[in-house]
């Protein structure tokens, strides 16, 4: 069935059904923004008359695309945000989750917008932001430590996310991402296939605890200011429960060295980032285990990049970011794997 255009009026009509005491609900300033390849992201302004008078809020709407690049569950993403709201892990407030396709043709959720901050990874490379790279890096890895330290059962996330056994985290993740590559690769990937063979032959120790894994914790997925403070951790769409070293390894991935040097995420040297994470999480980054998870993350990255290539080739998504991923990110990911295995 053909979709209707996404208009302020349709969004206002939906919000009216969710705000019992509100009237004169209006939506304006609706504009699409870049926000990941797996959901459409829109910014909007909501105004209405509530019980205490006029209310105005800036909101974000994240809607499923016609075809998703990576299969993720919006209810899991929504729950992950909610679990950390009001904690030491800064996240926007989640307002409404809608899984019915009636209101806006596809499932979506609406959240508050954290306004006034930057998210561009390359924006960090020049003043005034680059003057605070160390402070930002310290905050970034401290927040990840808080995520790793958190108890997912106490947060209630086990109700939506499968809880793996500590000795089963690695195989579950590797099986999944190898499956993605099997399904989506368009051309042979000899480097990542060799990486997978090595990972299977050299499994890591069991996870020291089962943690919330953000799934895409990297520079580019947080909001920052000019003083070196992070105000929002975004893009929880790949969140799951697992080995906390998975997130650490993803964030340390060489492909996120935006500055063209060895600073991870364009902010801090690798060893400094690990030290900060250990202090904040109360956990240990065993070097051999972390090496496994860093190498695994090259497989995970390649799963995303080959899926980008396939989505573009199939015509299901023609965003230019997918070509960027299929060419540049895929090549850098291969180089990252080679470097970790001592072959670059």
């Amino acid at each position, binding site marked *: 069935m053909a979709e209707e255009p996404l208009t302020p009026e349709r969004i206002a009509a939906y919000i009216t059904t969710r705000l019992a005491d509100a009237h004169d609900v209006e939506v304006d300033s609706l504009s699409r923004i870049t926000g990941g390849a797996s959901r459409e992201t829109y910014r909007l302004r909501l105004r209405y008359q509530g019980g205490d008078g006029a209310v105005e809020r800036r909101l974000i709407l994240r809607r499923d695309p016609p075809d998703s690049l990576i299969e993720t569950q919006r209810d899991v993403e929504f729950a992950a945000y909610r679990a950390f709201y009001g904690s030491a892990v800064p996240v926007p407030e989640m307002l409404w989750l809608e899984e019915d396709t009636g209101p806006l043709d596809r499932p979506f959720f609406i959240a508050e917008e954290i306004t006034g901050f930057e998210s561009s990874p390359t924006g960090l490379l020049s003043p005034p932001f680059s003057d605070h790279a160390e402070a930002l890096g310290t905050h970034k890895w401290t927040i990840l430590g808080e995520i790793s330290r958190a108890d997912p059962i106490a947060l209630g996330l086990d109700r939506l996310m499968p809880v793996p056994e500590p000795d089963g985290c690695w195989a579950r993740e590797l099986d999944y991402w190898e499956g993605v590559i099997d399904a989506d690769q368009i051309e042979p990937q000899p480097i990542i296939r060799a990486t997978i063979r090595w990972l299977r032959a050299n499994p890591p120790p069991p996870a020291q605890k089962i943690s919330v894994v953000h799934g895409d914790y990297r520079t580019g997925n947080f909001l920052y200011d000019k003083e070196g403070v992070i105000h929002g951790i975004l893009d929880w769409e790949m969140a799951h429960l697992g080995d906390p070293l998975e997130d650490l390894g993803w964030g340390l991935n060489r492909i996120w060295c*935006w500055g*063209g040097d060895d600073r991870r995420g364009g902010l801090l040297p690798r060893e400094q980032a690990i030290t900060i994470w250990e202090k904040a999480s109360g956990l240990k980054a065993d070097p051999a285990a972390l090496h496994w998870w860093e190498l695994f993350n090259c497989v995970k990255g390649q799963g995303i990049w080959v899926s980008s290539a396939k989505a573009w080739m199939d015509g299901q998504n023609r965003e230019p970011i997918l070509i960027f991923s299929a060419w540049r990110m895929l090549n850098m990911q291969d180089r990252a794997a080679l470097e970790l295995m001592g072959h670059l």
Partner: protein
Amino acid sequence: MTPNTRAILMDLAQRMGGLYAPDLKSPYLAGSAGLTAAVLMMAAEEGDRTAHRLVEENRAIRVLLNEAAGLPPPADLAERLRNLAGGDDSNLRISALQAVNDALRDTLTDLHAFVETQPGDSAAGLNAAIWSELAASTRRRAFASASF
């Protein structure tokens, strides 16, 4: 033909990124235009070198496939090696070179998995040569704008 493809794509990239994108009011369209400029720049680089890198790589992989004959590999792999080791890339269309490259890299992947399981200096030497070629393959595909 002049101007050539590389020059045209580079110019379009500069126009898209420097002239058109900044004037777009929609943040989404402005971001998309900026990314399109970056992709056009990569396309200029890749378009100029594709045939060269494919021919160079196909030759390098054939050398490795020929070296494997002495190990010797299992029969089905040996047959694939024989079938692929004698190609000459006489058809220089990129689509043809790419099809040959895909077949060669697919077989190289299986050869690598086999070589890793074999004892002896010959296997170790071939294993090292394969890793060396894989590293070279990433240099052939690297972009000037890449941060790593």
